């Protein structure tokens, strides 16, 4: 079991969700986060251009069985890239080993609980 954490652009959320649903990955958690990598963006407030220190991003967390890792990663890679070949600020994907997964309702553990 793996935990896939993807940090993506806010504006790509719809596309990524649609791609994941198309790949039959439907159990996801989405949250709004902020951080920064290499990207700089500008916003306008009362005619002044402002470059925020922390850029709003979306974090998607998906726990999957080992067989689904590639499908999930491919779906995110394809849909989170912008301008065709990708651009700075498209985000990152982290994959970490997942020790245990428990379904609260039944108490099931492991791969079947995902």
């Amino acid at each position, binding site marked *: 079991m793996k935990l896939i954490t993807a940090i993506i652009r*806010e*504006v790509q*959320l*719809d*596309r990524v969700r649609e791609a994941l649903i198309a790949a039959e990955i439907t159990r996801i958690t*989405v*949250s*709004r986060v*902020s951080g920064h990598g290499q990207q700089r963006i*500008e*916003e*306008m*407030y009362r005619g002044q251009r402002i470059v925020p220190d922390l850029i*709003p991003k*979306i974090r998607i967390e998906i726990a999957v069985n080992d067989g689904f890792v590639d499908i999930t990663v491919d779906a995110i890679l394809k849909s989170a890239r912008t301008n065709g070949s990708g651009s700075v600020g498209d985000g990152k994907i982290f994959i970490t080993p997942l020790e245990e997964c428990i379904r609260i309702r039944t108490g099931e553990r492991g791969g079947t609980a995902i």
Partner: protein
Amino acid sequence: MKIIWKRSLLLSIMLFLCVTGLYASDDTPIDTGVTAWMLTSTALVLLMIPGLAMFYGGLVRSKNVLGTIMHSYVAMGIISILWVVVGYSMSFGSNVLGGFFGWNKDYFFLKGIDTNVLEAGVPEYVFSMFQGKFAIITPALIAGAFAERVTFKAYCIFIALWSLLVYNPLCHWVWAADGFLFNLGPKGAIDFAGGTVVHISAGISGLVAALYLGSRRGYPYQVIRPNNLVITMLGAGLLWVGWFGFNAGSSISSGLSTAQALTATQVAAAAGALSWIIIESFHQGKATALGFASGILAGLVAVTPAAGVVQPYGALILGIVASMLCYTAIQVKNRLGYDDSLDAFGIHGIGGIVGALFLSFFIRPSWMKEAAAASSDGTWTIWNQLGIQAIAVIIAIGFTAVMTFIIIFLLNKVVKFKASEDDEMAGLDRSYHGERGYGMLNPS
């Protein structure tokens, strides 16, 4: 004796001066009571526009909240200017082009009404500004039909053209002294505060626009939830308050007819809101806050054309019928699957039609007597008036539908009306305004 004679001479001179002061300069005296209420009404109707912005703003997704609010706010800018330049003249000038709209060179830039006082004792500036607020809110209402999916630039051009080519002519027909709908039948087609001019026209135009532009991305399969029902409820509250200016102000007086309109407005709003949540409780099992707000609007919209002629029991029935039919219309919309995003047609179109037609059954007897006296054969029945109302409604529907279609069709050739898929997904706020409405809230 001499002194008395002198005194009376002085008195008569003074009286003469007074009298000539009143009439010779053809200045009607200002009635401060009426003027004060009309000033208040003007401000109240303006308050409805931020109210509408909040009502609509809360109903869209968080990425479109500012864009949707701006649809109402930018109307306050664009239409106010247009109204002063030509709008008032086109609406309330005398017939030109066979009565298609009006024109009066004194109203151009309002330059000739600096010292005018209307017969009602109200400075013409006040009346002009009061009517200007109606012109602002009408195109802003349409925005609900195509929320979350139009470019800001095209929207701005659209409301300007729509105001010039649809609102001003329609307003002239219905409310100007020589408008042809104003003079239909013995006492005219009844549209007290804008059932046809404001609500039917906005609702029908919204429907045409929604059908022409197509639905939002993902509709109806993707769930599209309101981002903040709290501001929607606040907006509905402001609309209710503002509506007293809208309806009671439309009497252009401060007396009996004002009181009658005010009472009808309150009763219809309450009846609409209550019946909506009752219907909803039976149908869906829960009485929702948004349902209550929708019922308020349905009731208010229906009583808008009727406020001057119905008594409280009539207003009550109008509110109930409006809620029933608007609720049904929205269910039908969900079946048919077209995307009138915030139900501009479902509430304003249907509610306006219900009000304009059904008011015929509840007209107060004194009005009917006057109509009978004014008619050629001395009789006038509710069915006669219903016929007049139906003609006015059909003309309003046909005219706005055709004109709106032409405007959108031509505009779309020049400026892309519908937002591109990328812009729509990123949200109007980011794509067209470069801002975000909320800080770090979870995406909805």
